[in-house]
């Protein structure tokens, strides 16, 4: 497409770096003489239909920014001294090959950690490099891996596949498609509308649906935009989501608002649990030579046990009528007699531990609101739940997610139009190992995976999440036990300012390493501590593919900036150097292999821009569990160990963890820490979203910074008054780990008992060298959050519910310090 003299318009897809997206907007990039002069939403693209977020609209300021890194840099002073020398790519590659090669020789490939931020179009290529080098230690640098993967892993624990809100994103004509149904109600659970498209859902789709009549239930301690427009708003105490979900289940079960047919047919409600061990009764317990993966039910037709065959997905005998309730005596293979009750009974007993009054005491939500919201959700057909990252950001993430997943399953909202719809990668074309998918890029052998940090300790890391456990890794850098860590590759990953909790410990860790490479677009507090910094590109400067749910999309290179290289090209070059057997000759060849299941080559995909999987494909909805589309053996059912939705999780039992949904009080709350709470009486919640920033990015973009110039803390007017804090004043936020400064926004958005701060703050305008590190220690709230409080299964971290006190910054003291 062309327009005007030198103007060219390139159609492409957004996906990091640049706007910081998880989504995939269609855009039209206006290029003049090789320079981006304007970017617009593509009106023909079914994802965004012409719309575009503020961050993407500011791309000209981002791409052409004077501070963009455009050549590789080599450190010439001490780490953190801010002394750099520009070098050529050849020199940079040689240096890295040499240094990392030496570490591999001396200590083994596992001694290098490959660390990512919120992966997007970088995760696959980090894995490609790590695996070519031979290291299994790909790490997402957040404590407890607490963003998204835990939710995916937990949902898959229950139902074998992940699922998301249905906004008709599977259909080119979207809401107009006759197969689609608008949800009667959406539960917006711990999610604001930051327009960064988490969960690969374009947040404003929910607004499209509200205009079409969808009612909203909001679960949020903050009076979010959704909360102020909700039919029901439940202001819960941060971290008590699990209790609230159990309360919903309690109402739904006891009022009979669940889908009985679904429970009988598709869940493991009838499977028996031994009363002596509290474990599932397996065929191998019951008969000599029986299979340990098959389960036992009580057949009411014969008044005898019957076997559920988890491979064939049927009972071993004909016409079994399994009991859903009751306790039964069974004689085991070894002659002993045990009593056993159904999963259904065990589940209901658990749910009955959470009567609404108790849930109200835990969550601080009035009983009436819990009951009314649960009824509204359960009676709306269809209804969907859309959640946000606070669900991951608590140590008991998995039991919480089990409860929420049980909600959509029991109300018959799974994989139905307008419900929670199973989300597969389009055409099952997957670049790398993600929860629930294997992908083209793999470790070369099982043995290579044996040294992955934390995999021996944590079940989900052996089943769903192919990453090193972050908290354990950080500790191992210091203890060198069971083996030393010598190097780190950080790509689009900024633990000192953004993703790292206890960031001063990350600084220490980086300084302890022999060799650190950072790949990024701008200098930031983390790149300052590297030995080599490589300049990466935005989405407009690269070819790539986007296969994250639907549709399948191509990213098409529109421009070149300086000597910047796309992440994939950087990693491809090094992967070739480290792995003599590296399979691909060029990037397009790799893309073609990833795209193979779609039947398209990269060139073909580029020509058509995007592709939707057809009806009948496993990545196309609906009702796939009934049609046998979810399992490789095409049997109706789910990809769980029992083939059922597991109200009682087989995997959790095998990992030695409580198998049924429940609530656990987080580690730092007024309830769990009454003593600490006396000194730090306010609940500190972090991660207030800004519409113009993506985590630690964009503070250097003038059009965006003017909209949100300072790190903000939200304080309720009464709290502010009692502490003599006025709107706009700077305040200290302090707890036992440290303190930092924020600008007070006195607002009704937060309750009296809680404050909410922004995250990811550093000041690109301040000196980069230590001790300043771009002023990162002033307002990085992660200094008040500890590492090492991941959940029992290695996932989740207490990020949304700490304790603190706040007080005004003393201007005179400040002035003294500045002198």
């Amino acid at each position: 497409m062309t327009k005007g003299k030198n103007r060219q318009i390139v159609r492409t897809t957004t996906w990091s770096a640049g706007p910081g997206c998880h989504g995939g907007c269609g855009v039209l990039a206006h290029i003049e003489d090789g320079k981006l002069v304007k970017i617009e939403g593509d009106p023909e693209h079914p994802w965004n239909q012409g719309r575009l977020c503020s961050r993407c609209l500011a791309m000209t300021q981002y791409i052409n920014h004077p501070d963009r890194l455009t050549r590789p840099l080599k450190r010439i002073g001490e780490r953190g001294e801010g002394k750099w020398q520009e070098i050529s790519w050849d020199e940079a590659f040689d240096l890295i090959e040499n240094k990392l090669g030496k570490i591999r020789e001396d200590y083994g490939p596992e001694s290098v950690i490959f660390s990512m931020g919120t992966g997007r179009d970088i995760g696959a290529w980090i894995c490609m490099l790590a695996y070519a080098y031979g290291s299994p230690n790909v790490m997402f640098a957040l404590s407890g891996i607490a963003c998204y993967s835990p939710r995916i892993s937990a949902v898959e624990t229950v139902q074998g596949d992940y699922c998301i809100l249905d906004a008709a994103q599977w259909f080119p004509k979207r809401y107009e498609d006759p197969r689609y149904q608008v949800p009667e109600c959406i539960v917006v659970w711990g999610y604001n509308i930051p327009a960064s498209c988490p969960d690969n859902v374009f947040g404003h789709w929910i607004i499209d649906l509200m205009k079409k009549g969808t009612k909203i239930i909001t679960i949020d301690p903050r009076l979010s935009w959704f909360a102020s427009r909700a039919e029901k708003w439940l202001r819960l105490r941060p971290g008590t989501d699990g209790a609230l979900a159990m309360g919903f289940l309690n109402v739904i079960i006891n009022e009979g608002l669940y889908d009985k047919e679904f429970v009988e047919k598709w869940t493991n409600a009838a499977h028996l649990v031994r009363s002596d061990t509290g474990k599932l009764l397996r065929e191998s317990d019951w008969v000599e030579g029986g299979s340990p993966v098959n389960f036992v039910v009580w057949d009411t037709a014969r008044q005898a046990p019957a076997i559920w065959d988890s491979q064939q997905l049927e009972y071993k005998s004909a016409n079994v009528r399994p009991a859903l309730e009751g306790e039964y005596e069974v004689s085991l293979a070894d002659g002993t007699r045990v009593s056993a009750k159904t999963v259904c009974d065990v589940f209901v007993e658990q749910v009955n531990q959470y009567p609404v009054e108790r849930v109200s005491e835990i969550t601080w939500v009035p009983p009436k609101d819990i009951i009314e919201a649960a009824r509204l959700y359960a009676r709306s057909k269809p209804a969907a739940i859309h959640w946000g990252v606070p669900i991951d950001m608590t140590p008991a993430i998995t039991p919480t997610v089990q409860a929420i997943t049980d909600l959509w399953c029991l109300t018959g909202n799974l994989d139905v139009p307008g419900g929670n719809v199973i989300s597969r990668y389009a055409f099952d074309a997957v670049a790398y190992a993600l929860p629930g998918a294997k992908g083209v890029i793999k470790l070369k052998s099982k043995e290579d995976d044996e040294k992955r940090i934390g995999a021996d300790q944590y079940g989900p890391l052996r089943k769903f999440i192919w990453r090193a456990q972050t908290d354990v890794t950080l500790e191992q850098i210091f203890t060198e036990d069971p083996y030393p860590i010598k190097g780190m590759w950080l790509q689009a990953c900024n633990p000192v300012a953004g993703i790292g909790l206890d960031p001063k410990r990350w600084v220490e860790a980086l300084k302890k390493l022999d060799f650190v490479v950072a790949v990024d677009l701008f200098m930031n507090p983390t790149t300052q501590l590297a030995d080599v910094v490589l300049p990466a590109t935005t989405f407009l400067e690269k070819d790539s593919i986007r296969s994250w749910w639907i549709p399948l999309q191509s990213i098409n290179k529109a421009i070149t900036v300086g000597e910047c290289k796309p992440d994939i090209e950087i990693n491809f070059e090094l992967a070739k150097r480290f792995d003599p057997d590296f399979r691909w000759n060029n990037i397009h060849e790799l893309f073609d292999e990833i795209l193979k299941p779609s039947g398209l080559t990269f060139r073909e995909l580029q020509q058509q821009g995007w592709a939707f999987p057809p009806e009948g494909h496993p990545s196309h909805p609906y009702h796939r569990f009934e049609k046998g589309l979810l399992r490789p053996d095409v049997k109706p059912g789910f990809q769980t160990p029992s083939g059922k939705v597991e109200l009682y999780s087989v995997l959790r039992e095998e990992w030695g963890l409580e198998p049924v949904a429940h609530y656990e009080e987080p580690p730092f709350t007024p309830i769990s820490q009454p003593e600490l709470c006396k000194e730090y009486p306010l609940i500190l919640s972090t991660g207030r979203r800004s519409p113009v920033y993506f985590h630690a990015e964009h503070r250097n973009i003038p059009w965006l910074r003017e909209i949100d110039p300072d790190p903000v803390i939200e304080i309720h007017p009464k709290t502010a008054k009692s502490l003599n804090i006025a709107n706009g004043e700077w305040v200290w936020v302090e707890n036992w780990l440290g303190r930092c400064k924020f600008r007070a926004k006195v607002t009704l958005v937060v309750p009296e008992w809680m404050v909410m701060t922004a995250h990811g703050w550093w000041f690109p305008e301040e000196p980069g060298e230590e001790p300043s590190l771009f002023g990162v220690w002033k307002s990085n709230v992660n200094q008040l959050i500890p590492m090492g409080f991941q959940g029992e299964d290695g996932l989740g971290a207490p990020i949304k519910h700490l304790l603190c006190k706040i007080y005004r910054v003393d201007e005179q003291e400040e002035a003294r310090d500045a002198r």
Partner: protein
Amino acid sequence: MPDKCEYGLLIDYEYCTGCYACQVACAQEYGWPEGMGGIRVIEVEQRLPNDRAYLSYIPFPTELCILCAPRTRQGLEPACVKHCMAACMKYGKIEDLAREMSQKPRMVLWVPRS
């Protein structure tokens, strides 16, 4: 006497989310430096009875809004309207927009200086 006004912007502020796309879209379209621009998003926090509150955002056209004359002349929508994430802005003839305004509450019709 000013010229007669013909066109305006209709805002459905029930759905404006405060995403600021309109503000940055205008800055990009006309290359406004920091602090200037054709539209400013305003936040209004209204306390209601029973400890509730209502959060509104409203895009307000400034003295610099030219109603995207160079775009509308070519048959394009104004840059802010086109990119509005909530699709809650509409450009058109004042009398058409005023008619539409009577269809639902929480609307505001701006007739910028242009």
